[in-house]
C-alpha cells in the first residue's frame, strides 16, 4: 500500500525507493573506489621506492633451520613451506590449549561453587591470581623460571631410561610405522563406526522401551578390543625408538621442546582462570528450582550437575567461551618472546626480515589468524544452535 501511494511513473528523487537505490549504488561505488585507490597508491609508492612487492618470495628457498617442524623440512625448502610449518605449530598450541583449558576451567569453575571451604578458597585464589597477571609475563615465568632452570641434558631427570626431562625438553620414545600400522588404522576406524552404531541402537532402544544400556563400558570395550585383536593378528603397529644421549643432545625418539611446554602451560592456566568464571556464572544462572526438583526426584550431586544443571548452563556458557578460545588462539602469538617457532615468530618475524616485504607478510599473517578465529566461532555457533533450548 505504502509503495503504491508513493509510486510515481518515471525517475524521481522524492521516491523513497529511488533514493534508497541511489544511496546504495553511491556507497558501493565509493567503497570499491576507495579500496582500488588505496591499493593503487600503495603499489605506486612501493615501485617508486624500489621495494619489491608481490608474492613471488614464497617460492624462494628459506635457508634457515627450524627447531620444531611437524612435517619434514630441510633448509632448502621454500618460504611457503615455512609458512605451513608455522601455521601447524600455531594450530598445535591452539588445539591442545583449548582442550586443556576447557577441562581445567570447568573443574575450577565447579570447585568455586563447592560447599567445601578449602576447595572453594583454593579455586578463588587460583582464579584471582592467574586472571590478573598479563599472559606474556606468565609465559616468560614458566619458560625462564621453571623450564630453563631444569638440569642440562647430561644431568637430566631419568625415568625408566625411556623418558628424560631436562632443559632441552621432554624426550620420549618415538614411534615409527611398522608392518601392522595400516591394519591398525583400519581397525580403529572400524571400532569408531561400531561405537557410533551401538550408541544409536542403544538410544533408540531406550526411547522405545526405557531399558538403559551400558553405553560407556561397551563403547570402551569396542574401542580397545577391535584394534587390540588387530594388533595381535597383524603385529605391532609401531616401532619404539628410545632416546639416547650422544654428545650434546639426545638422539632419536620424540622431544617436546620447553618452548612448547611453557607456552601451552601458561596459556592453559591463564585461559582456564577466565573459563572458570564463565562456567561459574553459567551454573549460577540456572534457577535453584532445578536443583530442588532434581533433589526431590532422588538424584544426587553428581548426576544433578551432569544431567540437569550443566546442559541448561551451557546456553549461557558457550558464547563467552567462544571469545576465550579466540583469545587463546591469538595469545599464542606471544610465543615470539620465548622463541617458539609459530606463525608470528617464524613468518612475520624471520621471513619478513629476510625478504623485507612487510605488507605482504603481515597481510598473510592477519588473514590466517582471521581464518582460524572465524573457524572457531563458526564451530561454536553451530554447537550453540544445536544445544539451544527450543522455547515455545
Amino acid at each position: 500500500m505504502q509503495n503504491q501511494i508513493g509510486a510515481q511513473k518515471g525517475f524521481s528523487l522524492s521516491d523513497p525507493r529511488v533514493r534508497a537505490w541511489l544511496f546504495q549504488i553511491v556507497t558501493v561505488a565509493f567503497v570499491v573506489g576507495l579500496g582500488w585507490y588505496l591499493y593503487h597508491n600503495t603499489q605506486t609508492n612501493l615501485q617508486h621506492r624500489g621495494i619489491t612487492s608481490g608474492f613471488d618470495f614464497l617460492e624462494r628457498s628459506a635457508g634457515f633451520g627450524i627447531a620444531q617442524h611437524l612435517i619434514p623440512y630441510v633448509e632448502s625448502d621454500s618460504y611457503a613451506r615455512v609458512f605451513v610449518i608455522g601455521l601447524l605449530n600455531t594450530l598445535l598450541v591452539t588445539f591442545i590449549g583449548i582442550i586443556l583449558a576447557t577441562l581445567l576451567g570447568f573443574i575450577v569453575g565447579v570447585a568455586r561453587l563447592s560447599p567445601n571451604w578449602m576447595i572453594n578458597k583454593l579455586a578463588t585464589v587460583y582464579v584471582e591470581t592467574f586472571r590478573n597477571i598479563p599472559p606474556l609475563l606468565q609465559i616468560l615465568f614458566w619458560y625462564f623460571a621453571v623450564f630453563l632452570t631444569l638440569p642440562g641434558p647430561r644431568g637430566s631427570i631419568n625415568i625408566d631410561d625411556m623418558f628424560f626431562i631436562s632443559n632441552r625438553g621432554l624426550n620420549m620414545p618415538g614411534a615409527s610405522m611398522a608392518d601392522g600400522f595400516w591394519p591398525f588404522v583400519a581397525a580403529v576406524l572400524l571400532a569408531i563406526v561400531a561405537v557410533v552404531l551401538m550408541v544409536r541402537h542403544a538410544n533408540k532402544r531406550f526411547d522405545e522401551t526405557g531399558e538403559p544400556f551400558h553405553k560407556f563400558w561397551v563403547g570402551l570395550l569396542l574401542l580397545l578390543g577391535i584394534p587390540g585383536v588387530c594388533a595381535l593378528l597383524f603385529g605391532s603397529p609401531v616401532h619404539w625408538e628410545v632416546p639416547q644421549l650422544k654428545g650434546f643432545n639426545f638422539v632419536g625418539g620424540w622431544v617436546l621442546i620447553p618452548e612448547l611446554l611453557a607456552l601451552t602451560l601458561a596459556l592453559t592456566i591463564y585461559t582456564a582462570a577466565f573459563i572458570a568464571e564463565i562456567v561459574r556464572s553459567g551454573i549460577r544462572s540456572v534457577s535453584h528450582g532445578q536443583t530442588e526438583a532434581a533433589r526431590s526426584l532422588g538424584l544426587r550431586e553428581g548426576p544433578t550437575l551432569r544431567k540437569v544443571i550443566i546442559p541448561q548452563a551451557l546456553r549461557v556458557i558457550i558464547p563467552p567461551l567462544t571469545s576465550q578460545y579466540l583469545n587463546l588462539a591469538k595469545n599464542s602469538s606471544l610465543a615470539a618472546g620465548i622463541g617458539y617457532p609459530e606463525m608470528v615468530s617464524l613468518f612475520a618475524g624471520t621471513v619478513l626480515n629476510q625478504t623485507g616485504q612487510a605488507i605482504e607478510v603481515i597481510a598473510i599473517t592477519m588473514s590466517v589468524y582471521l581464518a582460524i578465529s572465524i573457524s572457531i566461532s563458526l564451530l561454536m555457533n553451530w554447537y550453540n544452535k544445536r544445544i539451544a533450548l527450543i522455547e515455545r
Partner: protein
Amino acid sequence: MKMLKTTLAVLTAAAALGATSFAQAGATLDAVKKKGFVQCGVSDGLPGFSVPDAKGNIVGIDADVCRAVAAAVFGDATKVKFSQLNAKERFTALQSGEVDVLSRNTTWTSSRDAGMGLVFAGVTYYDGIGFLVNKKLGVSSAKELDGATVCIQAGTTTELNVSDYFRANGLKYTPITFDTSDESAKSLESGRCDVLTSDKSQLYAQRSKLAAPTEYVVLPETISKEPLGPVVRKGDEEWFSIVKWTLFAMLNAEEAGITSKNVEEQAKSGKNPDNARLLGTDGEYGKDLKLPKDWVVQIVKQVGNYGEVFEKNLGKSTPLQIDRGLNALWNNGGIQYAPPVR
C-alpha cells in the same frame, strides 16, 4: 541530513588515509635541515655499537657515525635523535621514513641493497660470524659442534649463514631463535643452548655482559663475511653521498694523522696540500656535497677520526678489547680504504 554528514565524515577520513605522505626522493637533506636534527636508527642495546650509558645517552661506533653525519650537516654533533630498533622493525622504519639513516650493525648483502629500496653507504666494521661456547664443553673448534643446540637472533643473516655452514660440513644442529640478542645470551647462560652464534663483535659484547665472562670462549672459526654499515633510502643521491663521505672523511683523517686534538691547528697551518683539501682550507669540496666548508673539521673535532672512535668504543680501554684486525687501515694490515677528497 544525517546521511550527508556521515558520508562527508567517511570521505574526509578516506582522504586522510589515502594521502600517504612519502618523502620525496632527494628531499631527505632538506627535511633534516628543516627538522634541525638527524633521526638515527640504532640497536636496542649492543655494547660497543649502540647502547645507552649510565646517563641514558647512546654510545657506540654506530651512534658515533650518526653524530659525525650531524656534525657534517649542522656543525653540531649533538643534533641527533636516536630510535632504538630491534632486528624485525629496522628496515621498515627506514623504508617508511621514520628514521633518516640506519646505523645498526646491519650486514651489507645483495638482497638488502637491491630488493628493499635501500642502499648501503659504506662499511663501518668488517665482521664475520663466530661461535661462543662454554669452556666446560671442551670444544675447541666449530667442526666439533655436531648435534649442538644453537641460539640465534631471529631474522638475521646469522640464521642463514649458520645453516649453510652446518650443512656444508655435514653437521646437525637445532636452532633456537629469539627476538633480541639479550634473550639469546640468557639462554646460553641457563644452558638451554650449547652455543651462541652471532657477529663476532656481538659475541664479545654479549660475553662482557654475562655473569662469568671468563668461562666462555669464542671459537677461532669465522664462518662468513659480515660487512656492517649504515643504510639509507634509495633514490636520494645527496643524502647517500653525505653519509658515504662522512665515513670516508673519518678514515681519511686517521690516514693523514689528523686527530680531534690537532685538527684545529692542522686546518689553520695549511702546509700539507692533502690535508688542506680534506679540511676545507683549499677548494670547494664541501660545497659539492652540499655541506659547509669545514665539515671534516667539525666531524673530527666533535666525534673523532675512525681510529679514535674505534678505540673509544671497541678498543683496549673497553671491556670488549677487540683488535683492529680487518678494520685497520689498508696501509696497516687491514682493509679499511677511503677514496681521496679532491
